[in-house]
C-alpha cells in the first residue's frame, strides 16, 4: 500500500536516485532529466488519488522506463529518416571518459543499460523489467546477459 507524502516531498525523496539511474541508462543528463520530468508529471496528475496507486515509486520507475522506450523508438525512427548518426548524442560524453567503467558502459546499447539497471540495480525480475521496457522476459535476460559479459570483458581488460 502507498505511503503518501506531499508530492513535493516525494519528488525530493526520489528525484536524485531516479535521475542517477536514468543517467546510467541514457548516458546523457539532459535526456535523463526530460525522462525524469515526464515520469514525475504523469504521477503528479494522479497524486491526489495516491492511495489508489499501490506503489508510487514503482509507478514512477515503470513510467520512466516507458518514456525512455518511446523516446528511443522515436529517436530510431528519426535517425532512419534523416540518416544522420550525428543526431544521437554520444553517451557519457559529459563525464570523464578516461574512466574505464564509463568507457565500458558506453559500449553498451541504451536498452542493454536499461535492462541492467532494472535487474541488477533495482532487483526487478526479468518479467517486471520486461513489462517496464515493453519487451519479453527472455529479451530482458538476453540484453542483461550480453551487457554483463561486455562489462566483464571491458573492465577486465583494462584492470
Amino acid at each position, binding site marked *: 500500500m502507498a505511503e503518501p507524502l506531499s508530492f513535493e516531498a516525494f519528488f*525530493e525523496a526520489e528525484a536524485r536516485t531516479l535521475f*542517477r*539511474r536514468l*543517467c546510467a541508462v541514457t548516458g546523457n*543528463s539532459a535526456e535523463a532529466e526530460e525522462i525524469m520530468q515526464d515520469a514525475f508529471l504523469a504521477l503528479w496528475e494522479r497524486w491526489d488519488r495516491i492511495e489508489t496507486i499501490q506503489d508510487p515509486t514503482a509507478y514512477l520507475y515503470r513510467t520512466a522506463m*516507458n518514456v525512455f522506450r518511446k523516446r528511443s523508438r522515436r529517436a530510431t525512427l528519426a535517425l532512419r529518416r534523416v540518416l544522420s548518426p550525428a543526431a544521437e548524442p554520444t553517451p557519457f560524453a559529459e*563525464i570523464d571518459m578516461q574512466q574505464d*567503467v564509463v568507457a565500458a558502459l558506453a559500449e553498451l546499447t541504451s536498452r542493454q543499460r536499461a535492462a541492467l539497471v532494472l535487474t541488477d540495480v533495482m532487483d526487478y525480475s526479468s518479467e517486471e523489467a520486461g513489462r517496464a521496457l515493453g519487451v519479453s522476459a527472455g529479451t530482458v535476460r538476453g540484453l542483461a546477459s550480453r551487457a554483463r559479459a561486455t562489462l566483464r570483458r571491458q573492465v577486465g581488460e583494462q584492470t
Partner: protein
Amino acid sequence: MNEHRDLLENVGERFAFPDQAFERLARRRDRKRRNQRIAAGVVGITVFVAAVWIVTTGGPFDRALTPGASVPATTPPSVTDPAPDVTPRPGAVGFIGLAPVGATPSAPEHGELVLSLYGRSTTDGGRFRAWVYADGRIIWDMEGDFPYGANASTTGLLEQHLTPEGVERIRSEIVSTGLFAHDLTLLSGRVREDASGIQQPVGIIWGTIQVRGGDRLVSVTWSNPEMYPQDPGIVATPEQSTALERLDALLTHPESWLPASAWEDEEITAYVPSRYAVCYSATDRALGASRMVSLLPPTAQNLLGDRDRTRYGASDTGIYCSVVTTGEARGLAETYDAAGLRLDDRSINSRLGYLVESPDLPHGEVSIYFEPYLPDDQFLLCSPCG
C-alpha cells in the same frame, strides 16, 4: 549479479543533479499544459459547439430535455505563460490560501454531494474539478488564466448556484451515457503527434466522475493508455469510448456548457470554506507525526499536538491532517510567519504552505500546508495535483 550495481550507481553519481529541479519540473508542466490548451483550442471550438448543442437541445441522447433559452457567453482560457505570476490581479474572484478576513463562509456549512467531476479535457486541456451539491451549489476550479481567476495559473475555488432542475439536468446528462450502473475504470483514447512533434491526446485524457445513486456514489474513471500506460483499467468498448468522449466534453468550466435555465445564480463568487485541513508530511519517511509537530513553533505545537489527526497511508508514515477552523488556520499562519518559516513556493500558486527546516532534519524538510474543506466534509488532499 550485483557486481554491477555499484558500478552503475557510481556512474550515475558523476552526473550533476540539475539545480532547481522541482522548479524546472513545474515550468515543464506549465509549458506542457499550455501546449495542450493551444492544441485543444484548435479542436475545442468544434467540440464546444457540439457540447452546447447537446446540453441545450438534449442532443441525440436525452430527448426529454427542453431546449435552453440561451447559453451564457464564455470566456475562452488564455494561453499566455502561467508560470511565474501568482499575485492576485485586479478583478480576481477566486483566491488561494486562507479566506480573506471578513469573507462570508459558503452556506450551509454541510451539503450532500450529488456528483463530482474531475479531470483534464481534450476540449480545453486544463484540469477541471467540480462538486455539485443537492442544495444547488456548484463549487469548481480550473487551471488556466481567466480574468476572474486567483492568479495566472488557476481560478481558485469558485461557487455558483444551480436550480434543482439544473442539478438534475447535469446528473441525468451524465447518467444517460449508460456508464454508471456500477463503478468502472476504463482505458480509451490515443495520441497523435502534431506538426511540432508534440504528442497530443485524441479522444480523452483522464478523468473521474462520481454520481450519487441512492446512498452511494458510483464512480467512473478513465484514462488514455497511450499517455498513462501504467494506469489500471479495462479497455473500453467502442460504445463506452464514445460515451467517455461525451463526458470528456463536460470537464471544462460549467458556464461554457450549462444553459441559462440551469442557473439559480450564475454570478461567480469565491468559495469560502468554513474549515481547513492542516496537513504535514516530511521528506524523511521515517519521521512520525509527533516528531513533525515537535518541530513547529510552540503555539502550533499546542494546537496540533492535541488535535485529532488522520493519517493517509497504511503505515505510520505519510501525510497527517487535522481539522481547524478558519480562525485557527489564520492563527497558525501568523505563527509560522512570525517564526520565520519559509513559504513553500513550489506550490504557492495552488495552496498556502510552509517549510520547516531544521538541523535535526538532515534529509529534507517538513512541509505543512492548508487545504480547504468542502461542504460534504471532504478536503482537497492535494490542490496542486492533477
